[in-house]
Each structure stands twice: as C-alpha cells, then as structure tokens.
C-alpha cells in the first residue's frame, strides 16, 4: 500500500510550553517573581544564590529556591542555611529541568507561593540543554565565572542569547586569572546586544547588593 503523508505542524516541546504557561499564570497570580539560573557546572550558582536569598530575606522579601542537580541533595542543604525554604530536584542524570519537574516538586512541596516575593529555580549546570525549556520564569539569568574564559558567550550563543541578564561570578579572582573584562563584555554584547550585566563575588559580597536591588526593581516594575 502507498504511504500517506499526514500534516502535523506541532512543536515538539509543546507539552513543556503548556505546563510552563500554567506555571507562569500560577506565579503571577501569587505575585511571586521567578528567576531561572543557568550556567556551566562550577560557576557558582549556589554560592550566589545563598547570598541573594540571605539579602532578600533581610530586606523583608520572602524567597525560596528549587535546585536541580544530577545526583545529589547537597545544594538544597547549603541553601537552607540562608533561612530560605529550599528543595532539591534530583534529575537522576537528566541534563536540564523541564516544566513538569518544577510543577511536580511545587505540588509535593506544599510551598505557600502567596507568601513569597521571589522563587529561584537553579537549573542543572549545563550551558546547552536547558536553553529550550521554558520553566514559567519571569527572568532567565545566565552566570559566567571569570575563570571560565571570556569567549564563553560566543561558544554557547543559544543559551546566552536566550537569557535576560548576565552575572559574572568570582569577580574577586579577576586579577589573579587575568580576566579580560573588555573581551568578555564584547563577547556577550556580540551574541546578546543590550543585555544587562552584573559583576559579583559571593566570597567578598562585591556586587551582590546591586544585583539584589535590580531584582527587587524588576519585581516592582512587573
């Protein structure tokens, strides 16, 4: 029998997009501002997040974190020290978070979204796989440490282009590793013209207040 052609024309990620859309509605209804943090492994997402959560809570902005990791629950334990509710999503080897994982964990967790101003979703350390997966966030923040190489944005243009803000981490190490600041900004600007950039150190606290001020401003503007 002759083969038949059936038109489909549907997005392969439409299920993820639908759940992300539901999550976004739910977050907006609860008036919670949601940030998806992405970076390579070892850039310092958890360290920056510890500092960010602590400052937000001290300023009277209740905040919580969902943390994706391939195998361990260590990050959620670290984050809990900031006083913020934190929950781990162990992906068992999956290289990125998907919207259904966020939804399932929020449902199991029983977190009171209405009582929060901010929710951070720390993605799995990976600059490729998370890029196509909407998690219902208001903002995607890409982190880049000064030890990683200034041309990383050009090496991973899809992730950097899809991000709303870039945060340099470990800026206290800029001098010892001879970080070329101009080259790094040029690389970022080349793949994502006009992106907002912060320079931070979770160790010294440099730049973290500016980053937190900006987040608070973004939430208020929404």
């Amino acid at each position: 029998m002759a083969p038949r052609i059936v038109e489909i024309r549907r997005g392969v990620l439409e299920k993820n997009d639908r759940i992300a859309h539901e999550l976004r509605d739910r977050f907006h209804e609860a008036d919670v501002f949601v940030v998806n943090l992405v970076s390579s492994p070892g850039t310092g997402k958890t360290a920056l997040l510890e500092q960010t959560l602590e400052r937000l809570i001290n300023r009277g902005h209740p905040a919580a974190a969902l943390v994706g990791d391939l195998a361990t629950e260590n990050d959620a334990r670290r984050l809990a020290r900031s006083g913020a509710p934190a929950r781990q999503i162990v992906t068992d080897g999956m290289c990125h978070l998907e919207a259904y994982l966020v939804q399932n964990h929020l449902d199991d967790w029983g977190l009171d979204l209405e009582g929060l101003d901010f929710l951070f979703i720390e993605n799995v350390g990976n600059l490729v796989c998370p890029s196509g997966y909407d998690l219902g966030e208001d903002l995607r923040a890409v982190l880049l440490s000064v030890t990683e190489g200034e041309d990383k944005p050009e090496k991973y243009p899809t992730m950097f282009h899809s991000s709303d803000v870039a945060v340099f981490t470990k800026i206290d190490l800029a001098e010892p590793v001879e970080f070329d600041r101009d080259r790094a900004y040029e690389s970022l600007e080349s793949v994502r013209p006009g992106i907002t950039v912060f320079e931070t150190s979770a160790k010294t606290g440099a730049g973290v207040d500016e980053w937190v001020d900006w987040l608070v401003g973004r939430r208020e503007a929404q």
Partner: protein
Amino acid sequence: MGTSESPQSPNLFHPMHELSIARNLIEMAETAARDAGASRVTRLRLELGQMSGVVSEALLFCFDVAAQGTLVEGAQLDIELLPVVVHCPACGEDSPLPSIQRFRCPRCDAPTAEIVQGRELVLASIEIED
C-alpha cells in the same frame, strides 16, 4: 550537546537532552499514526532552527535508539535546518544572520537581538503505512 561530537559518536559520557526530544517526537508521531489508523510510521519531517538548542547528529543517534519497539521503528528522520533570521530595529529589514556569534544586522550593522526564525523545533509531517 553543543560542541563538536562527530555524527558517528555523540558523546555518551554527557547526558543529552536530545534523547528526551526524540522521545517526544516519537510519542507525537505514534499518536498521530494511531489516530489515522496506521500500523507504521516510515518517515518524519522535522523543522529544526539553528538556535533550537538541538544538535541534529545527536538527535538522529537518539532517535534510532528510542524508536525501537514503537510504530516509528526503522523510520527515516528528515531534518530541515532553518537558519536564524533577525529583525533589525534600525532599518526594519528581516535578514538571515551569517553567524550566530554576531547579532548584528547584515544590511546596516546595527545590533539586534530580535530573532524571527531559528528557534523552531516542529514536527511538520509524518509518512504512514496502513
């Protein structure tokens, strides 16, 4: 995977999101085939944007593995790669971007972040047998 694996050997030491993409694709094709009363899918046509975050070699590799034991087993996956097209806020034109490392309008060189094509990950059609 984003970097330089050869088509023959995607780097299996790193987890690949192409496997979950392949599973979604197969599930969609199987559902459509069943709805049409078909017993087998022989071909799938996928439109893949250059900035979809999916590497076609890795997807092809995962697809063959994931299709085993489904209505899609042995089917051909045709991938049409769509280049990135940007809209320029300065000159108002839409143009294909020569390099995704440089988001500037190819006509007037103004910076632009506005993608009008290149993120697609769309199952366009399938070919089925009764």
